[in-house]
């Protein structure tokens, strides 16, 4: 079939429009990568360029003379993300399950008790003072994990997801004498895998990308998670302790600006590698929940 003129015009506009937006989405990533591969001398002389004048791996070399800091931050981030997501998902799904049970008399009242926290809050400062002065959590791993464990939205999402599981499954399990926890753990959880995967990924992404909590609570270097380390490096490259004094060439500049860019690449790399997998699950999860959570 011959294509209509209007279709050709429509397609052309569409391709150009989407291509421009796609390029705009990629450019910031590209400038970070080319920036990290530039030589420090060029940056100081003429600033960052789209394509580096001289290709150089000095920034990466400098960073990996002493990689302990980066490894430690990776360790903290992985630990916090895994612990937070596992515990958070367990508690969220239990709460969602209880609220989805029709015979549970107080489910509406308790759902409102949880929902109300999204409507009104005491704000950042009372929350901060509670955690630091009364719960004594300053500079602990606990402060990175516990305050972010649950969100009312996730519990509501979970509840709605579990509501779509037919009641007859719970009913027949009850007749067979199964207890509430057993029904949840052996029947409802396996049936909720898509919901669990979506909410779990959201939680994991939240923990992994979190820098704010560490910014508020963490003071010891060894407890700094990845994103907060990057934040500190961007503010001052000397945060990253490198040992590159042994270089003899006369016009050698120790990398600072390029080092910041290299740190950004090293910190973000794994997310980009996991991206195809992450994206697939996100798109699937989003289209299940569609507009309404």
């Amino acid at each position, binding site marked *: 079939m011959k294509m209509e003129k*209007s*279709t050709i015009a*429509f397609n052309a*506009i*569409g*391709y150009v429009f*989407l*291509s421009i*937006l*796609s390029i705009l*989405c*990629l450019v*910031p990533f590209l*400038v*970070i990568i080319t920036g990290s591969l530039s030589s420090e001398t060029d940056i*100081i002389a*003429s*600033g960052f*360029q*789209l394509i580096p004048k001289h290709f150089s791996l000095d920034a990466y070399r400098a960073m990996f003379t002493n990689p302990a800091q980066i490894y430690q931050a990776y360790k903290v981030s992985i630990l916090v993300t895994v612990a937070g997501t596992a515990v958070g998902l367990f*508690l*969220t799904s*239990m*709460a969602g*399950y209880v609220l989805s*049970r029709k015979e*549970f008399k107080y489910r509406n009242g*308790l759902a409102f*008790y949880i929902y109300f926290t999204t*409507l*009104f809050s*005491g*704000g*950042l*400062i*009372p929350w*901060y*003072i*509670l955690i630091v002065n009364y719960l004594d959590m300053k500079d602990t791993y606990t402060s990175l994990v516990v305050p972010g*464990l*649950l969100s009312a939205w996730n*519990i509501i999402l979970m509840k709605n997801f579990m509501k779509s599981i037919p009641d007859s499954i719970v009913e027949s399990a009850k007749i067979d004498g199964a207890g*509430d926890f057993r029904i*949840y753990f052996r029947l409802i959880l396996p049936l909720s895998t898509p919901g669990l995967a979506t909410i779990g990924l959201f939680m994991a992404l939240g923990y*992994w990308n979190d*820098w*704010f909590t560490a910014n508020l609570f963490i003071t010891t270097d060894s407890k700094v998670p990845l*994103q907060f380390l*990057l*934040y500190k490096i*961007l503010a001052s490259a000397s945060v990253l302790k490198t040992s590159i004094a042994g270089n003899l060439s006369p016009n050698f500049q120790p990398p600072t600006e390029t080092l*910041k*860019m290299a740190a950004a690449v090293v910190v973000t790399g794994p997310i980009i590698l996991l*991206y195809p997998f992450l*994206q697939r699950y*996100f798109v699937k999860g*989003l*289209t299940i929940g569609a*507009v*309404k959570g």
Partner: protein
Amino acid sequence: MIGFFREVARNRVLFLMIAPALLFFALFSYIPMVGVYYAFTNYSFDGGLFGSPFVGFDNFKFLVSSGELVTLTRNTILYNIVFILLSNFLQLVCAIFLAELPGRWFKKTSQSVMFLPFFISFVLVGAFVLNLFSSQNGLVPSLMAQLGLPHYDFYMHTAPWKYIIVFFHVWKGLGYGTVIYLAAIMGFSEEYYEAAKIDGANIFQRVRSITIPMLVPTFILLILLSLGGILKGQFDLFYQIVGQNGSLFNSTDIIDTYVYRSLAVNFDIGMGTAAGLYQSLFGMLLVLCVNYIIRKTREDYALF
């Protein structure tokens, strides 16, 4: 009361299962609500919550009379309105093109690329801004220098930062919103399109008279839902882009950054809590209004 205990006894396990969540919100949401009392005190670290001098509404009066509250509210609301309208518009257009264009590979690739920014942390956005706009060696100033344009220091002007902030907000949410609109379009029945084709409607006419009218309810719903959060600022975005550059605050300070500075920089606990309480109260009123409107028009989408 007896009925309550009987209920607890009967559904012991269910109560135990939800107990951690109830405790969590009691501890991290309800107890801090008591702390809004700080807003009515001249907080001192020795005095603590109830030992600091009570000053009534002085903190609020100061926020109003210094003009701070007006600036913060104006900035927060204006940014959010631009964010909401521009984001939703671009997401909608992207979704329409993704739904109609041929070429699987192109669509898959561009959708993946546009979704990528959603997954990165705001700290990386800070790295982009450093690379692109830093006074000494930013990419944009050095490109301008190479083109022979006069030297321009972004950190000496407030004007460009509005656009930079809006750009990165739209940039980060584009892919996410596009997926939601695309899912809505995919739910439309093919029959309408087939019928329109038989009637000789071209693709522009089909989009204008089928896709767009059918997307309007989703569009309005998403806008309404976002309007409920119009007083909530995106702290990460503003803080990572503007940071502590005080000279830019007049056009980039929002309630959330002000509250943060009260806590971490100025140690003005009373004033910060007051601004936070103001945000929380009016935010709640807004959500209630929005919910009322949705309830009147499309009941099944009401929040509660």
